[in-house]
């Protein structure tokens, strides 16, 4: 146990069980409330990847889509995409 504590002190063991629980709960609770299943979010994610990669160079695995609750109680679809640059012109569809 003290070993775990020592690892944590050095930031070696990643998020704490408490932080994990909170993060996971916030995820499932928002899914339960919005009635938007995770499978639908995954389909949305895959399609976003398809669209964005036509224009930008991206790490497809790192594209992340999730729901966030806004202050007014509505749900925002938030996607995080890291771009490594613009695709060369010839790869791009005509504008």
């Amino acid at each position, binding site marked *: 146990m003290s070993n775990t504590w020592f690892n*944590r002190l050095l930031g070696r063991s990643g998020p704490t069980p*408490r932080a994990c*629980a*909170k993060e996971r*709960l916030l995820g499932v*609770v928002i899914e*339960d409330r919005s009635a938007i299943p995770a499978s639908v979010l995954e389909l949305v994610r895959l399609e976003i990847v398809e669209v964005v990669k036509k224009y930008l160079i991206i790490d497809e695995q790192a594209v992340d889509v999730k729901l966030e609750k806004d202050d007014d109680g509505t749900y925002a679809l938030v996607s995080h995409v890291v771009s490594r640059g613009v695709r060369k012109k010839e790869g791009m569809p005509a504008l």
Partner: protein
Amino acid sequence: MSDDVRVIVITSGKGGVGKTTTTANVGMALAAQGEKVALMDADIGLRNLDLALGLENRIVYDVIDVVEGRARLKQALIRDKRMQNLAMLPAAQTRDKSAVSATQMKQVVEDLKAEGFTFILIDCPAGIEQGFKNATAGATEAIVVTNPEMASVRDADRIIGLLEAEGLRDPMLIVNRLRIKMVESQDMLSVGDVQEVLGNSVKLLGVVPDDNTIITSTNRGEPVALLKESIAGQAYRNVARRLLGEQVPFLDLGERDSLFGRIKKLFTSK
């Protein structure tokens, strides 16, 4: 006059989080404050409130006998000998949750009001089916009990949504079985974490630490609210005082974040 009566359902969604213990102890603590308290066991078929109160040997009639006209409400109510102004209406043990309808439940609540009680606490069955709907039918306020544990918090969130659909808005929250040391070592959800997940509509009513005296006193049929030295008992007495409108500070909850977390909070809090 009877409009001043507080009718509170105690619910959780998930089973085993401490609804019945909460009902028994909050009831006891309210009665100790001089309130006239009726505790109704709405968990038809799985009667347990009698055990938590140590009244199991005194049951003659139950709520089904009252609803079906075999007994008058007064006959079925069991007065607590330790606390004269506390009474329990037992659930039936031989029937199931469909044996009482929502309409009949409302009628029982009305009849309890007419008996002059100032607080009526309804111990709700686990689950989200008909038994839940019946138990909530006669209530005007709700207490949601949760443990700082994932399945329990998730179910509490579902229950809060369902309570709102039943017109029971802004439920009160009791976080039960908190292990302060585990929160401090970042191994367990804190009360603040639970509140953050469940959202702002929920009002914190109490925090009950995990405490061995709950087990020993339940085994003896003596609710911990009666034990002066029990920390869980103190937590339940505090809940009763808050229900009566008093501002009572919460026990030390081990809420301390890591140093970084605290600094971050300074900059992000509104």
